[in-house]
């Protein structure tokens, strides 16, 4: 009597399994937001100690690439008015690689650069002395839009990454995606950066047009 039951086919109907899985799949498809932790990294300057007066920095005007953005989103680049930040990246690149008055250390650096970068040194006396001295300064008003600020900051970063990349024979994009996790990519990263610090200075905004 009892045996009869065990002879019955005990297979579960798996036809609807796909439907169940589909339902779950669609649930996850809808709720998923693939995390985007991408962005532009910026290191803020350390907090000023009120007891120590800020160091008196004497930098030659020619070593600073001034970018001012006002509350109307107009730009003043090195004293010259313009409406859009277009072409700023190549100008910054020229400025960094100018080598107007290199000292000994900078000459060593210059000689270590690949020929394609050496050719970009214009040696104009009114531009930067050498990359170690060069600073890109971005100053905004409180009313400047964040979008434009980020665009300018992006272009300044681009100029540096292009130089770093070209130094190690990579494109700017390839250089940027180096993780520094393994020896080889860390080495490439360091070789690109060596002697050319990324000096982008963000000045405190003017109190115009904001709150």
């Amino acid at each position: 009597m009892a045996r009869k039951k065990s002879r019955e086919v005990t297979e579960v109907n798996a036809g609807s399994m796909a439907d169940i899985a589909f339902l779950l799949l669609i649930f996850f498809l809808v709720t998923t937001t693939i995390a985007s932790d991408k962005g532009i990294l910026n290191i803020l300057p350390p907090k000023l100690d009120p007891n120590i007066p800020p160091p008196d920095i004497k930098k030659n005007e020619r070593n600073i690439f001034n970018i001012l953005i006002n509350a109307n989103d107009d730009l003043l680049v090195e004293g010259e008015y313009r409406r859009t930040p277009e072409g700023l990246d190549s100008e910054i690149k020229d400025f960094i690689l100018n080598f107007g008055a290199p000292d000994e250390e900078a000459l060593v650096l210059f000689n270590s650069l690949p020929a394609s970068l050496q050719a970009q040194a214009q040696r104009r006396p009114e531009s930067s002395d050498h990359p170690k001295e060069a600073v890109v300064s971005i100053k905004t008003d409180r009313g400047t839009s964040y979008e434009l600020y980020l665009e300018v900051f992006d272009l300044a970063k681009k100029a540096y990454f292009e130089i770093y990349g070209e130094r190690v024979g990579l494109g700017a994009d390839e250089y940027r995606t180096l993780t520094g996790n393994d020896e080889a990519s860390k080495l490439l990263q360091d070789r690109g950066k060596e002697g050319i610090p990324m000096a982008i200075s963000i000045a405190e905004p003017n109190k115009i047009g904001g709150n």
Partner: protein
Amino acid sequence: MSKFKKKTNTSTNIPTSALPDIIFMLLFFFMVTTVLREQDLLVEQKIPQATQLQKLQKKTLISYLFIGKPKNTGLYGSEPRIQANDVLISAPEIVQWVNQERDMLPESDRGLITISMKIDKEVKMGPISDVQTELRNADARRVLYASTGKVPN
């Protein structure tokens, strides 16, 4: 005539028994990559685009600040506000918030805390510089301006 008819005898059933497995594979992919939204956004977020994006390796070091116009303007006003975790905070409270976030990290990583600022396009630089000043006060100086990739033209 009958020469051609022979072929129709073959069964044209596609075996679907492997279908659940394929679907499950997709399901697992999405389950692994998914990050369920932990918090409701109280502020508007239209992230600007940029080209020079960098990706951070250690996700545990990142804390998020959302800045933008509040969605519920009746309750919170229309000026840009800062959202940390689930609440809107004012700029001076950032120091405390950073210290809380930092305490959650293992001791060796505390200096490396990175603040990912997700800022709406419409925000002006004023509130942002206030936030940055507070971040400097809190000594959380690694800042990531979150942005999405721009297709170069």
